[in-house]
């Protein structure tokens, strides 16, 4: 069965390559290590693009955090999220369940696995980067030594916006930023703002890169 899951993953990543010519800025990590990646979220293709620039050894150990209410809905989504993409489900509406999930995530990180989280909590329209939810902060408090890697994705809201089934091909960009670290005693709002600012900074770079 694992062969089929891997095949489906590669197929999805390959199709995404066709739909979006991916321009990579920054260096994708090469060695598996516990890291928390966080990215802006505009499209279902986001995750595929990120997987596409990671080497296979990292892909296998990357666990995206997925909204339970959306990804457990229907057999196809459930299959993709569980078997193919190794997602960890997060309950968006039940705080005590969410706390449990963050403990599980911290354990995974302790085993050297990586986590990918979309802190906006939902897909935006590709314009502004939305407000960050507190989950990232609660997770970081439990694993203060794990580095954070910001990832900015551009153009995917145009390729496959929320609510659409068929993609309109387009060139997209993925920008990987410098690692961020937990600062002892930092307040929740400050921490989340710092993380969001790192994405905004990458966004500015991404826009500047195409203009010469």
């Amino acid at each position: 069965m694992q062969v089929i899951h891997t095949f489906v993953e590669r197929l999805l990543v390959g199709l995404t390559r066709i739909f979006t010519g991916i321009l990579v800025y920054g260096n994708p990590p090469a060695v598996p290590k516990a890291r928390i990646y966080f990215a802006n979220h505009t499209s279902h293709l986001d995750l595929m693009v990120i997987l596409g620039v990671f080497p296979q050894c990292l892909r296998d150990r990357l666990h995206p955090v997925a909204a339970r209410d959306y990804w457990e809905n229907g057999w196809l989504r459930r299959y993709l999220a569980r078997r193919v993409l190794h997602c960890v489900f997060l309950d968006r509406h039940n705080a005590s369940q969410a706390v449990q999930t963050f403990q599980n995530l911290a354990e995974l990180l302790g085993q050297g696995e990586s986590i990918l989280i979309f802190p906006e909590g939902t897909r935006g329209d590709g314009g502004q980067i939305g407000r960050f939810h507190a989950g990232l902060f609660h997770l970081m408090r439990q694993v203060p030594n794990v580095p954070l890697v910001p990832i900015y994705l551009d153009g995917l809201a145009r390729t496959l916006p929320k609510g659409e089934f068929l993609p309109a091909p387009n060139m997209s960009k993925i920008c990987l930023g410098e690692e961020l670290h937990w600062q002892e005693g930092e307040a929740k709002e400050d921490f989340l703002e710092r993380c969001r600012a790192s994405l905004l900074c990458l966004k500015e770079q991404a826009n500047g890169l195409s203009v010469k």
Partner: protein
Amino acid sequence: MNLLHDRKLVALVLIVLALLILGTIVGRVLGIRASQGKCQDSLAANFQARVRSWWMMVAVFAVAMLTGGIGSILLFAISSFLALREFICIIPTRRADHRTLVWCFWVLLPLQYWCIYIGWYGMFVLLIPLYAFLFVPMRNVLAGDCEHFLERTAKIQWGMTCCIYCISYAPMLLKLDCNFDDDGSAVNARLLFFLVTIVEMSDVLQYCWGKILGKHKLLPKVSPNKTVEGFVGGVLSATVLGGALSYFTPFTLWQGLGISLLVALAGFAGDATMSAIKRDSGVKDYGTMLAGHGGMLDRLDSLCFAAPVYFHLIRYFFVS
């Protein structure tokens, strides 16, 4: 179509191979000179990257030709797809355009190349300039967003015409029913080969002449790298090359010279136009697919304008 039995086509391919080998040698020499500090590193690296891309492109093109008509049609269909993808990237579309774009990519583009495959000339000529022209605004109206309506519609129509319609003229050459007095079995394949060689060599020669002699800027605002010397030298040498290669085509020497001149001029117009669109959008290259060349559209911009002109010249004068 048995291409290998056509001696003239084989000779053409050998000439292109010789040119590539020459390019590789020049690249090596430039590399050595750069390591001795006699010329710029970036120039040598750029030149070598371009030659490597050319090897790739020629290999892909050769394989497409060898697999017969279907291979070439597929190759140009994929090129159209990639070019349109780059074009859509640099024009600002809105959320309401999404479904229209889905139609363009997944229905109209395959339909255009399907018309070529079955040799339906009437629909091939009209599909994009007429039916897609009417369809795009209609589909945009259904999406119900009036903001910048004409601008958005026109930009999509532009992308469709340049990236699908114009480029698709190249493989349509294979379906031309010419009455040439020519002994070869693959005369259509040679017509296509001739077009691609002249257009691309004109680009390369303009670049080379510009690098060697270039002083006076031709279109400083549109494309700062273009010089009068590069333009004149490139177009003239491409014309001479076309005259020399006319032996391998059904054209006489004078026809070969005239057609090459027109093709080179049309190619230049395409190149300059696409540059202007890029400037307008604040982008230098359309993509990074081909090392040293920018994107697919950067390589196909000349062919875009040259292919329709070339096709209709031949159709007008040589097809009864």
